[in-house]
């Protein structure tokens, strides 16, 4: 049954969820939770906070299902917007966290050698530290564009700004990241 559901678009799954189809929740969670969590983790630089934000964003998604209009807002765009706002709220409440918790684990840890995991964790910590130095909106835009691979028009919808503003934010953000990470090439394992 889940295999059939997996062929459906997100908005169709939202409607099925509202009608009581439990499989719809599983498919939507599998599709969207990793993206939401990843976005929150990169923006917040803290795994625990990111998990809280991701869970809250998904909860708001479930609650929105009853009134969801098929063919309206794209589910992922809506969810990114909710996540972005929750993350900004969290940043303002707690201050900017720099660096990831040590609880961060790569996805396929069994397949990675311990050294590779360490290098990867170091790289993510360096990236998070560099991201944390960017202004909030610039950070959100860079994460959405260059990590999540979201298109500029979709980012414009998420952040409720113009496409031109997105292009400007991502360009400046990437330059700032490159500058922040300059000199760490060997430390990041690229030497």
């Amino acid at each position, binding site marked *: 049954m889940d295999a059939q559901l997996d062929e459906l678009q997100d908005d169709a799954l939202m409607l099925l969820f509202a009608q009581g189809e439990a499989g719809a*929740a599983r498919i939507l969670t599998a599709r969207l939770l990793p993206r939401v969590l990843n976005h929150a983790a990169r923006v917040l630089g803290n795994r625990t906070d990111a998990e809280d934000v991701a869970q809250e964003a998904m909860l708001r998604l479930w609650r929105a*299902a009853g009134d969801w209009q098929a063919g309206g807002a794209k589910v992922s765009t809506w969810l990114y917007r909710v996540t972005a706002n929750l993350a900004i709220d969290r940043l303002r409440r707690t201050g900017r966290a720099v660096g990831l918790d040590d609880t961060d684990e*790569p996805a396929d840890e069994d397949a990675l050698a311990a050294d590779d995991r360490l290098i990867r964790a170091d790289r993510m910590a360096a990236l998070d530290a560099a991201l944390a130095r960017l202004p909030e909106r610039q950070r959100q835009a860079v994460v959405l564009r260059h990590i999540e691979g979201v298109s500029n028009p979709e980012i414009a919808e998420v952040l409720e700004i113009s496409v031109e503003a997105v292009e400007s934010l991502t360009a400046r953000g990437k330059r700032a990241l490159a500058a922040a990470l300059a000199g760490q090439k060997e430390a990041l394992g690229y030497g």
Partner: protein
Amino acid sequence: MGDKRDDLDDLLASARDAEAPSDALIARVLADAATVQEDLQAPAPASRRGWGAWLSGIGGWRGAGGLVAATATGLMVGVYAPDSVDALLDGALTDYGVIASDELVSGWGALLDLEDG
């Protein structure tokens, strides 16, 4: 510079799948989903219809009692002509100049007399 940009792109790309949701987080999210789904499926409380809705709209049995009393009073005032009402009030309406004696119709009895006549 070119290398640096490539390295940054690699780093950003490697961050794409960096955070896999833990089983515990997935379980929490699905538990939330189940709770919300139950709420969505729970039948909405049946809206009151007919007399129940009407009664509720006027404030229940207490409101209905008041409405009946007010209706009965109005009916009584309508049935008894103003002279009778004035008489019931010991001529207060006339005393206060609300009505003049010659405005008074003889009431129920006069109506019957007219029909007889």
